[in-house]
């Protein structure tokens, strides 16, 4: 008997060990918002209920396995129904479910109320990057994976935030209600930051809303959660949450910087770059922005992404080549790079594509040509 009692006590004490999991990296994060905390509490409550039910049911099973075995000479009883018991174990789970539904409903209603927000951020997913735009301020930028390809293929050792590092994180203020307007440019993506308990699908042609209010400054990382093609694993989300004053400062600075960059861009239009300059910058841009689909050698992936090497469009129609790089191609994975790259980079990458891998067109595309093409000339 002693052993049995001890075993039972041990089993019953299991649920009390659950809080140990609380801040373990093997459990859901409590996050840094009130909502994420509520979600975490809900998760732990259901887990606890499930564990208790599990112990009772499996306990009864093992009791039967140990004590009611034929090898111990157990004789089988012949009962095979009991309406009372059956009604009882339909009703009890039902009551437990109601007890679970109450906190779940409360949390859900709190989650789905984006009213009275202080800041709106438009999030647009595309294969395989995120674009952020501060709705009222007009500040916008793309956010791309910053992990080096050499780390991924193993020729460099992997840094601490491997696959969770971007070139430009989304900067947000703490203690402000932030509303996200989420959509997509191509396929369905899903914007997920576990620390905020926000996961919302980005659907092409439709907008979705979500909101958060961050309690603590810090860097928070997430990933795209909906399969979106080849590089689904490589479009992380990084949020840099700052105190409201610091955030305001950052936003103002970024706004001026973006305006200056735009002005500088205009001046660039007149500049002539040499073939070497164009080709070397072009190769860098190509590897960063184009090689994921068209491959480093320009051979593409037959049946999925067209080859650029020996491409008829590139070799025969310069204007069409520039147009497709600038504006993308509707209904395909080919994006609009006009918004993503600087004038200089566009000129360089197009020149590179026209002259690399035996595409010997010999012609150079200058920033001025791109500026003209933008105006439809």
């Amino acid at each position, binding site marked *: 008997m002693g052993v049995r009692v001890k075993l039972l006590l041990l089993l019953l004490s299991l649920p009390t060990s659950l809080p140990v999991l609380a801040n373990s990296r093997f459990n859901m994060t409590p996050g840094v918002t009130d909502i994420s905390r509520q979600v975490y509490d809900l998760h732990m409550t259901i887990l606890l209920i499930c564990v208790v039910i599990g112990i009772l049911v499996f306990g009864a099973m093992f009791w039967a396995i140990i004590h009611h075995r034929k090898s111990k000479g157990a004789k089988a009883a012949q009962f095979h129904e009991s309406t009372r018991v059956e009604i009882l174990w339909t009703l009890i789970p039902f009551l437990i479910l109601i007890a679970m539904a109450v906190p779940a409903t409360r949390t859900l209603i709190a989650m789905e109320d984006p009213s009275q927000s202080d800041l709106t951020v438009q999030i647009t997913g595309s294969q395989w990057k995120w674009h952020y735009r501060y709705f009222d301020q007009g500040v916008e930028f793309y956010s791309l994976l910053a992990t080096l390809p050499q780390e991924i293929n193993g020729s460099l050792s992997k840094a601490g935030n491997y696959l969770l590092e971007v070139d430009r994180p989304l900067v947000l203020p703490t203690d402000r209600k932030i509303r996200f*307007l989420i959509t997509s*440019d191509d396929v369905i993506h899903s914007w997920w930051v576990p620390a905020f308990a926000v996961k919302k699908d980005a659907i092409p*042609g*439709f*907008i979705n809303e979500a909101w958060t209010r961050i309690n603590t400054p810090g860097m928070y990382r997430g990933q795209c959660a909906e399969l979106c093609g080849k590089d689904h694993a490589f479009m992380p989300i990084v949020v840099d949450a700052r105190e409201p004053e610091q955030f305001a400062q950052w936003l103002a600075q970024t706004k001026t910087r973006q305006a200056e960059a735009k002005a500088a861009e205009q001046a660039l239009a007149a500049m002539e770059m040499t073939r070497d300059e164009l080709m070397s910058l072009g190769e860098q841009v190509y590897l960063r922005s184009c090689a994921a689909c068209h491959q480093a050698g320009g051979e593409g992936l037959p049946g999925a992404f067209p080859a650029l090497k020996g491409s008829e469009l590139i070799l025969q129609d310069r204007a069409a080549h520039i147009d497709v790089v600038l504006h993308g*191609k509707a209904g395909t994975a080919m994006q609009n790079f006009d918004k993503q790259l600087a004038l200089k980079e566009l000129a360089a990458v197009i020149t590179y594509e026209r002259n690399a891998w035996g595409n010997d067109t010999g012609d150079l595309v200058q920033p001025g040509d791109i500026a003209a093409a933008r105006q439809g000339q």
Partner: protein
Amino acid sequence: MAHRKQAARLGLMALAMFGFGFALVPLYDVFCQITGLNGKTANRVAAGSVSQDLSRLITVEFVTYTATGLNGEFEPSVRRLQVHPGEMHQVDFTVTSHASEDRVMRAIPSVSPGLAANYLRKTECFCFQEQPIAGQSAAVMPMRFYVDQGLPDDIELFTLSYTLYDISEPVAKRG
């Protein structure tokens, strides 16, 4: 034979379910309209407003997106409006095409929260229509609307988004 008869009946049932799969397409729209799922706005012109409710003020935001493959800009005349339910308003959306040749475009609306979509009444709209836009030109597309008084009380703000697609290619293919 009884077996064959019953098998035939089951076969018909399967065929009916195949049809039901397609019937889900229009049913889905009805479903969306009832529940406000996915923020689909009604694809038809509403009658004018009857009366106004001056005690309530609702914020309507307008966002625009241009889809991949579109060479141009697409902007609303105003990004945010405060409206009373029942009050008529007009917002002009301007498309500026930088393409050298003529294009055909189409704007797809979406409303969030989805529930509000049922209470956005458009008396004049360009949604879903094919818009021929001449090369190197701008076109103004007006949208006149009012917010129905039935809008649930907890909605103080909603967003109307338009995504503009260049559909010249499929249109050309259609002939």
